[in-house]
């Protein structure tokens, strides 16, 4: 890029644009600042032990974030476990197998899934997904996978597993649509090369496509993770909202975002409110860390890819 010879106007313009860009810094700094300021009571009271304590008792003013951190991580991880294979399946189907006429409608439909507001997903989950989990999926899992120890205890249809399912449905479009773009970007010569060696279609996809597209796929998964961590309304409606570390996938749990959504309006004590804002701060910091890891991962994978390109 070259610099034009614009003088004052150019410099003003550049400064103005820089101002816009810097305002992003300012906004994040302000948010961080106000969160720290408003949670200082709790920060002062509990210190770092806030993140090691598992007690959440508003009556006695004893607060700890462990059950929420646990619930957030567990539900997001399970959601990805369900969503990633499905999303990849859809992406591969659309790009490699789908009749041309079906391609646009299917990808458009998956995008509509992303446009539905969270609260609507929650309503649907309560009336449709929860009964299915209670009557069919739950008993099935208990019968055939009960030996894993993951499915003991009563199954009421509400709990960690159901929350992960609705989260999976919500992150699916994000992952699948980015994976689709990435897979589409793999040059056809790669596919032809593998096919020419006598590979079946599956081998072509595995060797020729997925291996080349893995950077983008990792990025897509991390984006899905970011979304799953901060999701509020739908999860709140089906996770059971019980502040204890769940002992089974059927047991109720709680997430960072849900506890804020549930209790922020009613928190009357200053310490209580402060503890809730500290939960908000924790959520904020977690998103920063996840973003940092995502960038690092993509960077590492990119480097690895150039080193041993197929």
């Amino acid at each position: 890029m070259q610099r034009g010879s614009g003088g004052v106007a150019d410099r003003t313009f550049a400064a103005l644009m820089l101002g816009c860009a810097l305002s992003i810094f300012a906004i994040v700094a302000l948010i961080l600042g106000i969160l720290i300021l408003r949670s200082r009571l709790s920060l002062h009271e509990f210190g770092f032990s806030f993140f090691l304590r598992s007690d959440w008792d508003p009556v006695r003013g004893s607060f700890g974030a462990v059950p929420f951190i646990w619930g957030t991580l567990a539900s997001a991880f399970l959601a990805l476990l369900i969503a990633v294979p499905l999303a990849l399946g859809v992406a591969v189907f659309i790009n490699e197998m789908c009749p041309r006429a079906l391609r646009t409608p299917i990808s458009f439909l998956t995008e509509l899934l992303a446009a539905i507001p969270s609260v609507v997903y929650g309503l649907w989950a309560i009336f449709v997904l929860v009964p299915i989990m209670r009557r069919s999926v739950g008993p099935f899992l208990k019968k055939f996978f009960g030996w894993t120890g993951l499915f003991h205890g009563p199954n009421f249809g509400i709990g960690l597993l159901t929350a992960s399912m609705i989260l999976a449905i919500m992150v699916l479009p994000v992952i699948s649509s980015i994976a689709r773009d990435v897979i589409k970007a793999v040059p056809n010569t790669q596919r032809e090369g593998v096919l020419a060696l006598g590979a079946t279609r599956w081998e072509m996809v595995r060797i020729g496509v997925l291996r080349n597209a893995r950077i983008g796929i990792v990025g897509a998964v991390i984006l899905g993770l970011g979304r799953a961590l901060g999701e509020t309304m739908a999860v709140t409606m089906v996770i059971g909202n019980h502040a204890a570390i769940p002992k089974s996938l059927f047991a109720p749990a709680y997430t960072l975002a849900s506890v804020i959504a549930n209790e922020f309006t009613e928190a009357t004590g200053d310490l209580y409110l402060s503890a809730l804002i500290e939960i908000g701060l924790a959520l904020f910091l977690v998103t920063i860390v996840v973003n940092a890891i995502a960038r690092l991962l993509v960077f590492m994978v990119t480097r690895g890819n150039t080193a041993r390109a197929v």
Partner: protein
Amino acid sequence: MPHRPSRANVGRRQAANHLFSVLAILSTVLVIAPLFAILVYLLFQGVRSLNVAFFTHLPRPVGEPGGGMANSIVGSGIILALASLLGIPVGIGAGIYLYEFGGGKTLANAIRFTADVLNGVPSIVMGIAAYSLIVVPQKHFSAFAAGVALAIMMVPTVTRTTEEMLATVPNAVREAALGLGIPKWRTVMTVSLKTASPGIITGCMLAFARVAGETAPLLFTAFGNQFWPASLNEPIAALPLQIFVYAVSPYDEWHRLAWAGALVLIVLIMVSVTLVRVVTGRGMLNGGH
């Protein structure tokens, strides 16, 4: 190593191939099925509940017929207009800086990262922040506070899309303009932005669609109002907020209005998403990041 394909090996490879095909088709069906279930359920509940009064009347107390959400629809319109007015110029400006001036510099990378962080801030946290930063010092809830909260949520999407779209403008075009002696600022505004405009509009629409359904940031900023919006400095009604209040109420009549509101909200969002797709041929998700 010489390799002789055995019948068993070919069989296994073909089996794997079939299994893969079945799994890919199955996953597509599994993804499409819930979407249909959700849409059909929502359409059914919403269409049953919609009527003309919904669009023309103010909310009424329980038991009085003909209540609607007209003020919430107008209120949402005002909040979203304000958010777009504040958020889009900043987002586009930041995008221009990143591509046209920032390049690969450390500062630009830091800003990109910060924008990603901002994009990841859960909306409920944004609600707490907007309340503490604007409502408490001003001593009143306002449409303005709600507009600012949503504007902040729009900025990162607009910024990243603008940068991405500017990157698709061939450098030759810029160089040609600069070569003619046109100053850089005019080159950016008249050449780069123009060429990239369909993509940038897409980004703006996406940002709009994303914040349109947000409830949490409005709870402690817009606050809600039973009356027509009168000033930006007063509490204002908003569609997602009214849906939320009615959904947890004890009355069937209010639930009916909540479903109708949800349908209107989704139609609004889907129309903008579809417009984006029809106008620019780009999707909702691949535009955003």
